[in-house]
């Protein structure tokens, strides 16, 4: 058998990716020089492209779509791209503008003070550095932070992906307890001065998870916190102490 015949006999395996590295290199080099083998590769590659269609389609796990969108949004190429456009998700959400606390009902002020206390605790380190908000900068335009649960939400976590260039953030919640009927979780953005602005409401899925799009810039906010509020629209200001919170990097 000639060298050509020997190498040609492995073209099908090469197309299938069924050669060891050294063999693959030899065959690749040969294909680059041999028009006949290149033609064979083209022909067989058509068949290779068909093979995935022999598999019965399966409904992917819930959340994979959002996971991919988040991973793409957070990928380095996205972070450095200059022509990226904003994206939307199918998550139910509500976006509110900055809240004027002076217009809030009096009872919320005490709760707001509690939120402010959380902020203070974060600032002075009473909330422990191992728990809260040690986000890392993935790029100049994509910044990650973490929210950590306490007390009743001790098992809950959230990852915040702040897409600074797009003026939006994605929050991946997990481990959230199920809510009582008629209640929702509400996302709060908190300024360094302790003002809590509502940033959306959501209900987790049966696994206690949810991807939430916060479609407002996190600029000017230092913390994110979650409370349980009356649905469907939530409250204009938090009515209880937040038990899931963290610093925004």
């Amino acid at each position, binding site marked *: 058998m000639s060298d050509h015949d020997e190498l040609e006999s492995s073209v099908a395996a090469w197309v299938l990716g069924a050669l060891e590295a050294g063999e693959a290199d030899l065959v690749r080099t040969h294909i680059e020089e041999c028009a006949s083998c290149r033609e064979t590769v083209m022909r067989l590659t058509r068949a290779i492209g068909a093979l995935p269609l022999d598999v019965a389609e399966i409904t992917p796990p819930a959340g*994979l779509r959002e996971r991919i969108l988040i*991973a793409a949004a957070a990928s380095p190429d*996205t972070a450095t791209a200059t022509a990226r456009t904003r994206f939307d998700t199918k998550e139910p959400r509500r976006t509110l503008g900055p809240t004027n606390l002076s217009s809030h009902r009096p009872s919320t002020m005490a709760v707001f003070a509690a939120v402010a206390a959380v902020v203070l605790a974060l600032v002075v380190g009473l909330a422990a550095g191992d728990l809260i908000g040690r986000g890392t900068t993935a790029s100049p335009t994509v910044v990650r932070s973490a929210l950590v649960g306490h007390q009743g939400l001790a098992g809950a976590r959230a990852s915040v992906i702040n897409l600074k260039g797009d003026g939006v953030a994605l929050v991946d919640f997990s481990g959230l307890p199920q809510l009582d009927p008629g209640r929702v979780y509400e996302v709060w953005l908190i300024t360094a001065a302790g003002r809590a602005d509502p940033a959306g409401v959501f209900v987790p899925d049966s696994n206690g998870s949810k991807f939430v799009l916060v479609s407002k810039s996190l600029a000017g906010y230092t913390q994110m916190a979650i409370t349980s509020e009356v649905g469907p629209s939530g409250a204009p200001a938090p009515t209880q102490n937040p038990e899931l919170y963290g610093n925004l990097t």
Partner: protein
Amino acid sequence: MGSEAPRGLADADLVAKLVAGNHEALGELYDRYGGLAYAVALRVLGDPGRAEDAVQEAFVKIWNHAASFDARRGSLRTWLLASVRNRSVDYLRGRGAHERQELELQPAMAEAGPRSDPWHEVSLSLERSAVREAMSSLPAEQRHAVELAYFGGYSQREIADMTRVPLGTVKGRMRLGLEKLSSYLQGRGLVDV
């Protein structure tokens, strides 16, 4: 958002939106092929968690390299599914993606023109039916050799050892199987499946 909903776009238009950073286009790509991509990954890996990882990597790769897509070389679906399969095999063999020759970046090398196909779901169904028919028409040993390599990630030598047949016989089975599959599909006008 102000961006055009990418539903029903042909490959080239969908890719243009991906290149422009339109995340809705990535969502549309997932809606079209996510189920098939996951099925391929699960077929290779047999592990739902790792299958999810492989699918995610493949989609993000398409997202990051959409500008390198050339419709003259094959469909977006072919590229995506090849990438899913390759990522899955890499996981299976504990191989880093960087070790793989990036064949999937130049997927089909077929001469098919770009497909303007708003009927992609119907088209996909017909193509899948044809592929299944074609696969079932192959002699069992040829189909087995092709499947072990493609979905099992085995090398031809490993297949020879597993099936206890000479290496030359495995090579022949692979070649014949793919040739027949190619002829069958080309005979039905499916040059770029």
